[in-house]
């Protein structure tokens, strides 16, 4: 039984986790870097511990200080949130070694799905299509050239240990390949301490679709449907929705079944997501996100569930107690509000009223520092259908007042009102298309 929990994160996700803990009667301990002193999560938690100066590797990535803080404040468990240590198997092991519960998958699962090459093998073995590409690391440039010819250009190079767009290189012609391989490998080495690279077919302008899953580690795996996260800028998601506007029912059902099968096969425990690329009538496994995701609220709204609560229950050893399939209602849409210029928030007035949910750590007086993720708020709406969701989202974004910092609100409204977004027929190139980005691929 988890009665007290340390949240090893900051910002809106820490606030969001604290709220569910309050709903469950769980005592909370926040941690913060000196740059985040006075941040909302430190005020909302029952107690707060400063764990280091502003650089992440000395604070939010400082395993020792975090675990010591959890231990000394008599916590039963640690929730890693999103990012930072959320997908670090070493951290999960250290937490468990300290006699605490890590809220997430088992370390060995994190290791398996964290390796792009190994996770592709698992997907293939579970009978899930993967993009054409190397099933082993690319060891040298001759081998790479041969493989690329076989797959057909454009191809994409990825760090085997990587994620989040870092260490990725898209190659359009054989001539670019040798240098791209060298650079990608160097980037992979410096970001992930592992220069291993693998190669895949680069799918141009696909849909980015992911399936949300919950698994209790006791044999029960269920899905909560898909999210469409195709609106991205430089591989960073901007707008997410569920259900996807562009999805044939048979294919969706197949992907859901595939996703459940893969998690069952690898014995997954906890909340997790399987990301797919979708183009026309094809879909390919991309990766597993072994954690809760920023965009989880859209799924919570359409399935009337609380994914953080489910994570905590699973980590407490409870069997999943949800209907299977989980019924889903209406359409939910999320806009990420990112700071484009940091500072102190001099005025904050969130949109309220019907159909609107706000996850944020902003308040009047909040300091938005340049050291961490730019995400300052998530505006999520839930209505019977996509058209109403878009209208309500525009209403909400126009009602939102944030002064003292600058944000991407106007840009988000522009996307929402754009013809391709409204039509629902668009891929990951949408942002570049609207902003006529020369980097558009």
């Amino acid at each position, binding site marked *: 039984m988890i009665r007290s929990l340390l949240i090893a994160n900051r910002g809106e996700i820490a606030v969001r986790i604290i709220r569910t803990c309050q709903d469950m009667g769980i005592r909370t301990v926040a941690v913060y870097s*000196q740059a985040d*002193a*006075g941040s909302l999560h*430190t*005020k909302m938690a029952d107690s707060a*511990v*400063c*764990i*280091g*100066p502003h650089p992440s590797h000395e*604070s939010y990535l400082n395993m*020792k*200080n*975090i*675990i*010591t*803080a959890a*231990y*000394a*404040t008599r916590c039963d468990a640690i929730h890693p949130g999103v990012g930072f240590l959320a997908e670090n198997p070493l951290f999960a092991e250290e937490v468990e070694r*300290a006699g605490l519960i890590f809220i997430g998958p088992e370390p060995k699962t994190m290791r398996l799905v964290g390796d792009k090459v190994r996770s592709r093998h698992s997907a293939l073995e579970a009978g899930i299509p993967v993009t054409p590409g190397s099933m082993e690391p690319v060891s040298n440039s001759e081998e790479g050239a041969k493989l690329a010819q076989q797959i057909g250009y454009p191809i994409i190079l990825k760090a085997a240990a990587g994620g989040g767009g870092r260490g990725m290189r898209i190659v359009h012609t054989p001539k670019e390949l040798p240098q791209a391989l060298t650079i990608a490998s160097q980037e992979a080495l410096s970001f992930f301490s592992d220069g291993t690279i693998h190669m895949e077919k680069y799918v141009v302008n696909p849909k980015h679709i992911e399936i949300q899953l919950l698994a209790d580690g006791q044999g029960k795996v269920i899905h909560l449907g898909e999210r469409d996260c195709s609106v991205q800028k430089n591989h960073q998601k901007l707008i997410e929705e569920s259900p996807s506007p562009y999805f044939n029912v048979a294919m969706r059902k197949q992907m859901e079944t595939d996703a459940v099968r893969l998690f069952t096969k690898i014995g997954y425990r906890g909340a997790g997501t399987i990301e797919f690329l979708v183009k026309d009538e094809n879909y390919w496994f991309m990766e597993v996100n072994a954690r809760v995701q920023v965009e989880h609220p859209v799924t919570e709204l359409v399935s009337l569930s609380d994914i953080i609560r489910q994570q905590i229950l699973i980590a407490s050893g409870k069997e999943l107690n949800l209907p299977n399939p989980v019924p889903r209602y209406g359409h939910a849409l999320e806009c990420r509000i990112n700071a484009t210029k940091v500072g102190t928030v*001099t005025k904050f007035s969130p949109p309220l009223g019907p159909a609107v949910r706000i996850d944020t750590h902003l*308040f*009047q*007086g*909040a*300091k938005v520092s340049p050291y961490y993720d730019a995400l300052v708020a998530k505006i999520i709406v839930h209505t019977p259908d996509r058209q109403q969701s878009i209208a309500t989202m525009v209403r909400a974004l126009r009602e939102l007042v944030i002064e003292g910092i600058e944000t991407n609100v106007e840009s988000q409204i522009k996307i929402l009102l754009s013809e391709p977004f409204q039509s629902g027929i668009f891929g990951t190139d949408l942002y570049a298309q609207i902003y006529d980005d020369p980097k558009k691929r």
Partner: protein
Amino acid sequence: MEIKEFTQIITIFEQSSLSEMEITSETFSIHLKKPTTNELKELPKIIKTEEKKDDKPKKSTKTITSPIVGTFYRTPSPDSPPYVEVGKPIRTGDVVCTIEAMKLMNQMEAEFDCEIVAVLADQGSLVEFGQPLFEVLPL
């Protein structure tokens, strides 16, 4: 402009409903601002040793702050005397306390010769990163 006049300006500002005020002239410039409704928790000391701010004129003391999160101990073992005593001088490199973190005892050493003026953390309590442990007077 005289100080009395500045005071008057400040008093006026204080008593007003204004939130901010800035005056610049050939001879002076003044900028006043009131605290916002949502006051932030005070930042803990950021640097490991720094000037202790105090209104009263006093000997210039410094604070030694915790470089890690852990449990603070003044003694090497439960029945030993403390590493350091208030009023006693200590040398650079002398152990001033131990901070336990993940079963490891981390001995904290003085970085300069000084005298302990006050012990600021409680025996056996959790100390945060940056939390003041000792007030010291450099020798």
